[in-house]
């Protein structure tokens, strides 16, 4: 029970820093937030937070940067931050995506981390704008009790602050927490707080100074399985003969409350709703359309429990692990499929080729702790460069595949803590001369030719010592 202590620590420090910051003036305080509404969705194991901020510039100079602050404990679990701004009036509103980048501030209180939203148009003094911010947390629902039996339902803790942590003054704010069911064991009250159905409402709170913090703890039932891919290696192999082969190696774990004691198949089969309610029974993978030669196996052979549905827009692969995964149970498997190359490989204007492919994990509602994407370029391709919409670790490798001589260049990209929302596309550019496609067939042909020549020679040369 370390977390509550940490939370109170944060509380203490924030109170202290609060006093500290009130007496200090900062250029940040040119902005203030006139209205903030936060909706926290904890129905699945990925916590989705929709934050609507109405930002006003009370200062004298125009500014184009808005800061978001997160406590350090949340930043570790933060998977993605996106910000949108509404453009246009009334009916013709369109949403425009804004740049969001992590920022370091030298005087951050208690290790708070910041993200800067770069506005498209600078906010002049006296003007206001409405920002829609979405951010996702992974591993933020802590099972409590940490171990449950087969027939018990899974209860989790969610920790946050009733007040939005912000470097700005917030005039009015409300927070809603949406739970998966009405079964809520307890929740911290920070008046005014009320609960209606599956929603807990904190607020409205008026006129809170910057860095206000008020820790809350919600203890509720969440019986959805917590599929977590501890490690995923996606290998995309380009063959210029017209095929794109994708191989994905998963290490899957149920990240919910650990299973304790007995697993009884009788109970599991006869009372599926009561017993093993939070067990992970199947997963859905959304694959590109026109997928072919799909396989689903692990190190000991094919896993027969899968279904593939294809239509013209998408393919859906429903897979079941070999056994239902209870909390803490693991499974590894491999999904592989082929795709027509023309859907993904294009020629850019400067005579280079580029692959356009999705970055993330095709499994829905799944958190990936560590993702490695490997793009295996055809033998003989040069100058690879990758364009990824978010920061990743990159390096190059060489792989030897069917009858390679010089080896294939592999672009390796690594990213940690990934959620399905981030399944955006990335591009890998490279140059390739089509003559290299013929290298291997020619090599084979010449090898056979030499073999036959050797045979003919052997048959025509008399090697015997005696005449």
């Amino acid at each position, binding site marked *: 029970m370390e977390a509550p202590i940490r939370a109170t620590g944060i509380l203490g420090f924030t109170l202290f820093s609060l006093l500290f910051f009130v007496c200090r003036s900062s250029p940040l305080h040119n902005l203030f937030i006139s209205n903030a509404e936060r909706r926290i969705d904890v129905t699945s194991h990925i916590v989705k937070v929709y934050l609507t901020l109405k930002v006003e510039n009370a200062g004298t100079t125009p500014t184009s940067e808005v800061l978001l602050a997160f406590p350090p404990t949340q930043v570790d679990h933060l998977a993605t931050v996106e910000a949108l701004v509404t453009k246009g009036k009334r009916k013709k509103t369109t949403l425009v995506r804004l740049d969001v980048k992590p920022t370091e501030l030298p005087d951050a209180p208690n290790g708070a981390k910041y993200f800067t939203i770069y506005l498209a148009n600078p906010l002049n003094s006296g003007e206001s704008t409405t920002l829609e911010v979405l951010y996702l947390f992974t591993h933020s629902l802590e099972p409590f009790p940490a171990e449950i039996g087969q027939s018990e339902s899974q209860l989790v803790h969610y920790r946050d602050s009733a007040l939005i942590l912000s470097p700005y003054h917030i005039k009015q704010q409300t927070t809603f927490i949406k739970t998966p069911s009405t079964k809520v064991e307890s929740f911290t009250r920070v008046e005014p707080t009320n609960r209606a159905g599956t929603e807990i409402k904190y607020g409205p709170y008026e006129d809170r100074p910057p860095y206000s913090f008020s820790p809350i703890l919600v203890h509720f039932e969440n019986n959805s399985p917590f599929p977590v891919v501890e490690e995923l290696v996606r290998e995309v192999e380009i063959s210029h003969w017209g095929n794109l082969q994708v191989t994905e190696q998963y290490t899957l774990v149920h990240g919910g409350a650990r299973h304790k*004691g*007995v*697993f*009884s*198949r*009788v109970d599991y*089969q*006869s009372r599926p709703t009561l017993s093993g309610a939070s067990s992970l029974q199947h997963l859905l993978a959304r694959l590109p359309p026109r997928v072919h030669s799909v396989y689903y196996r*692990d190190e*000991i*052979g*094919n*896993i*027969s*429990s899968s279904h593939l549905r294809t239509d013209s827009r998408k393919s859906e692969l429903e897979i079941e692990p*070999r*056994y239902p995964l209870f909390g*803490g*149970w*693991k*499974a*590894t498997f491999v999904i592989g499929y082929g795709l027509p190359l023309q859907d993904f490989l294009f020629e850019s204007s400067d005579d280079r080729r580029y692959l356009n492919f999705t970055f993330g994990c095709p499994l829905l509602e799944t958190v990936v702790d560590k993702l490695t994407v490997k793009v295996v370029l055809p033998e003989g391709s040069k100058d690879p460069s990758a364009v990824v919409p978010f920061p990743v670790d990159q390096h190059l490798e060489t792989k*030897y*595949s*069917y*009858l*390679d*001589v010089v080896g294939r260049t592999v672009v390796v990209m690594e990213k940690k803590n990934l959620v399905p929302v981030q399944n955006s596309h990335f591009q890998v550019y490279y140059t390739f001369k089509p003559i290299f496609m013929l290298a291997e067939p020619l090599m084979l042909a010449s090898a056979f030719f030499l073999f036959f020549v050797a045979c003919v020679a052997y048959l025509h040369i008399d090697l015997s010592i005696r005449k």
Partner: protein
Amino acid sequence: MAAPETSTAAVPTLYTNNTLRNAFGGVLSFFILLLIGVMAFSIRLFSVIKYESVIHEFDPYFNYRVTQFLAKNGIYEFWNWFDDRTWYPLGRVIGGTVYPGLTLTAGTIWWLLNSLNIPLSVETVCVFTAPIFSAFASWATFLLTKEVKGTGAGLTAAALLAMVPSYISRSVAGSYDNEAVAIFALIFTFYLYIKTLNTGSLFYATLNSIAYFYMVCSWGGYTFIINLIPMHVLLCIVTGRFSSRLYIAYAPLVVLGTLLAALVPVVGFNAVMTSEHFASFLVFIILHVVAFVYYIKGILSPKMFKVAVTLVVSVGLAVCCAVIAVLIALVASSPTKGWSGRSLSLLDPTYASKYIPIIASVSEHQPPTWPSYFMDINVLAFLVPAGIIACFSPLSDSSSFVVLYIATSVYFSGVMVRLMLVFAPAACITSGIALSQSFDVFTRSIKFQLPGISSSMEVDAVETSSATAEAQNDAVKTEKSEETSKNRPSKKSKKKEKEKEEKPSTKAKAEKRLLALPLDSSVIFLLLLILLGAFYVVHCVWAAAEAYSAPSIVLTSRSHDGLHVFDDFREAYGWLRHNTDVDDKVASWWDYGYQTTAMANRTVIVDNNTWNNTHIATVGTAMSSPEKAAWEIFHSLDVKYVLVVFGGLVGYPSDDINKFLWMVRIGGGVFPHIKEPDYLRDGQYRIDSQATPTMLNCLMYKLSYYRFVETDGKGFDRVRQTEIGKKYFKLTHFEEVFTTHHWMVRIYKLKPPKNRIRGKTKKSKSKTSSASSRGKRSGTGKKNPWQ
């Protein structure tokens, strides 16, 4: 056989005609062989197409695991590999106790492919090793039969072997077992022996020793070779067919072969120490004596020779008696008379069931039934006698070998169903000879009676040219052997006889014309033969597709709503692999040992390499003991999980309850407090309400049927077709941790030992004693073997 009309008239045209025909026949037989290889490979792929590319059954999983180790760690690590994952806490020296041929073969193939940058996995290579080697085996059969009876017989025999069900059963894709390469090695060794015997070439003799070495590496069945070849040599000597070629064929094999065999760690000094090999040494001595006698006979005058014979015989007899006495004393001093249990059960079929229940418990060590002969070799069973007759006309060294081979292998296959595999090639060779000879006879009679089509008969040159090819072979042979053996008058005369038979073809042909059968009957017989062959092909394809392709770790059943897959074994092994600690020990009956180590990567107590009877008996005892005693045994073995296979829910017949009597027998063989009659009611094995209390309280019963009654309310066992005897009970020392989807594998965890609480000891003691009073009673005076 188109030659006879023109042979006397125009010799030069005949010559050119013949070379052309030979070239044509050579190319044709090359392509036929190629197709036979393709067929041998592809008929074994039903398992991959119908199921998946996966390793089958039990032993192949061990071989697969060893190959994986070899591919990962290299050959030196492999020889020194001490495996601590099996036979806990004893472990097993894998490098020294395994026949490495198969593993090294697959490992080499894998290494070769990977160094050519063809990234096949070890599993893929292992799966396809057996089909590849069956193609090789059919080519070896061609070579062997060609040496015996010519090309036509060779091709027929190769085609028959490529699809003989008996061999398919052990070499479908995925059946990665020693036999897969051993049959090829066996046939190839025999071929090289015959080849050496026919040519007298030391080159082939050396190759023969190397082939024998490969066979020794691959399979324990090499003792068959090292006993069969001496038998044949002895037969040749006794029938007065001794020649220098025989000497060259045999002596290097024994010397080189034994030296090479001793290099294989698992054989080692057994190559000279055990009785299985003594026959070869005895014949080796006899051969030398005979050779010496022939030599002396050659240099002495007949009179002197007689004197020498009397001298030598008297001295030699004395020496022989002394040597034999020493040998017998040596052999008699060992308890099993120097024979291993399996070999003894070959000589005395009732031996195993009397003394070694472990050998008797394996289904493939049982004697076969008549239907299994028909299933495994089908129409060959009818062709074999005809083939044997064909071998006798004329009887040569090589055909006498085939006769001897088939006679011995028929006996062995009658003792052990597993050795049907050795019998199958012999059956294919003799049937190939029979088929080809009868085709020969019928087509010749047809041709004789239809002289007009003789020119168009070239089309079926393969079948008909066999006789000519053979004649030419013999001609070549005689030329060669005349050079090599000039000092052998008796042999020369024999050769001359042969030449008399073969060479003056006109005479022979004149005779053959007289032997021609009536046209209509020969046509009918030909059609019948083709029908017979077609029947064989249909049967083989059926056997390959339906009977022998199931990998046995995945089961399927067809019902009205489509195909249903039972993948419970891998479900359980997968669960063990990912959700137990890496050092946990899993106890199960030994059948599942190899699979558990290979698929679940967990340490097992016993496995399919049944080398330690006591250890297996301990597990058997635990399974047949009541819960508390079993817990104590398992706990002392550091076991954490117990795995049982239970087929009662879905009707899977080869489950642990059906194997249970063997556990009792093997356990009782070492620990006498386990008595088989305690588990039988009036001599009947039953698990219903009439079962004995010992049966209903033993661990195996409890683990199999724990909470089984809750599935249907009655506890109806679909394998035994009865309601179970004891329906509601609780487990006190074990807890269920996993049961697969169809209940076929159930895994239990040993409960941790209870804490001793000072005040409560008395109470808990009385409780446990009352709970397991029955168990105590049955186990009075027993001792836990591991304490």
